[in-house]
């Protein structure tokens, strides 16, 4: 079971409280986690990554295990604590106010 933490605006949009827990089949990567997330919560499509290119939106960041994974390959395997469910995969709105 993969644990995902969404930023507050996306929790509101998806109508969820707290962490999301997802079953991910196959290798656990950014791509497979986001695919599973969007499959369960289709209203999130386009809010985290581009509909067509699947590239991360500019002001979205991915973290796990105190690491910034935002620019890692979407097909890299996520850290083992995320894969085994002891740590969440964090989707964060970047600090980009003004």
């Amino acid at each position, binding site marked *: 079971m993969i644990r995902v933490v969404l*930023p507050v*605006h*996306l929790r509101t*949009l998806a109508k969820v409280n707290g962490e999301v827990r997802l079953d991910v089949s196959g290798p656990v990567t950014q791509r497979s986690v986001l695919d599973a997330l969007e499959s369960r919560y289709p*209203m999130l*499509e*386009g*809010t*985290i990554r581009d*509909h*067509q290119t699947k590239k991360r*939106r500019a*002001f*979205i960041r991915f973290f796990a295990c105190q690491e910034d994974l935002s620019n890692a390959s979407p097909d890299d395997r996520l850290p083992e604590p995320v894969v085994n469910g002891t740590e969440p995969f964090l989707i964060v*709105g*970047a600090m*980009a106010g003004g």
Partner: protein
Amino acid sequence: MSSVRVLVGTKKGGFVLTSDGKRQKWEVTGPHFAGWEIYHMKGSPVDPNRIYASQTSGWFGQVVQRSLNGGKTWETMGNKFLYEGEVGNHLFYDGTQRPWEFKRVWHFEPSITDPDTVYAGIEDASLFKSTDGGQNWTEMPALRSTKGELWQPGAGGMCLHTILLDRKNPERMYTAISAAGAFRTDNGGESWKPITKGLKSPYELPDPNAEVGHCVHRIAMHPSRPDVLFMQKHWDVMRSDDAGDSWHEVSGNLPSDFGFPIDVHAHEPETIYVVPIKSDSEHYPPEGKLRVYRSKTGGNEWEPLTKGLPQSDCYVNILRDAMAVDQLDKCGVYFGTTGGQVYASNDSGDTWSPIVRDLPGVLSVEVQTLA
């Protein structure tokens, strides 16, 4: 008894303001979609409880919301706005060509005959259509073929902000795009023509015959007279009596002919409203006095409407989609400011009072007249 529902989009959420036909006491609900920019909310003329809302964010992109109960509850609709075919390029500030890139929906225009059909004006400028109530969107690509390679963004972005539907001719529509111009189709969107003859923008467009590149801020029409159009351009208030084939200036005695919104009285097609702004570099009312100007002669002769509006130290702006009229008698006129006030007049503009004073900056105002 009739009532009105005012839909207010702001920089931090949407608000719904309701009143009975007297329009003196108001109930305010919101913020809906708190923290998000709500560029526009508009109800279907066929099914007024069906409201579309454009919810956007620099972080999370575009969300389309729809309510089927007058704004009490909302459901998320489709947000996939994909340009048709080869995306192509438009002109950028530095003179280079840039590919079109979807940024947000500026304006929804629900069909006047079918509740499931709605048009969306987007940035980078194009026109989209949904025929399933907002779930799926398809570009009407012929518009971008109308010299789109010469369009370039204005300071507010390359946005398609005005969509006018002709009640007498379902094949005819008008669109306006900031810094690109105004366009008309007579065949349901299969082809478009620039309608800019008579517009003058000597500093930005030295070529007096330039068909695109005029910075059109807003166009309004009275539904009973769809061939008569009124335009607030970057500078100049303009009028066309031939469906946009030609324009002439009607700025007359306005203290400034720069501004954003323009609208037409619900029952008097020759009565129009603008809110003059000092200049393109000083986006606030001249002399710090917030004045709506009304012409009862279709332009040229204007009177200031000031009763109830601040007449000193007022430095707000009124954006292009932030003025609307209701259908009651007397006609109600509404506008919102970048300072978060929404002002209403229940007597065609003779007197004004604020419905709310402290909302986030207002991006758009629409009003529905309910039976």
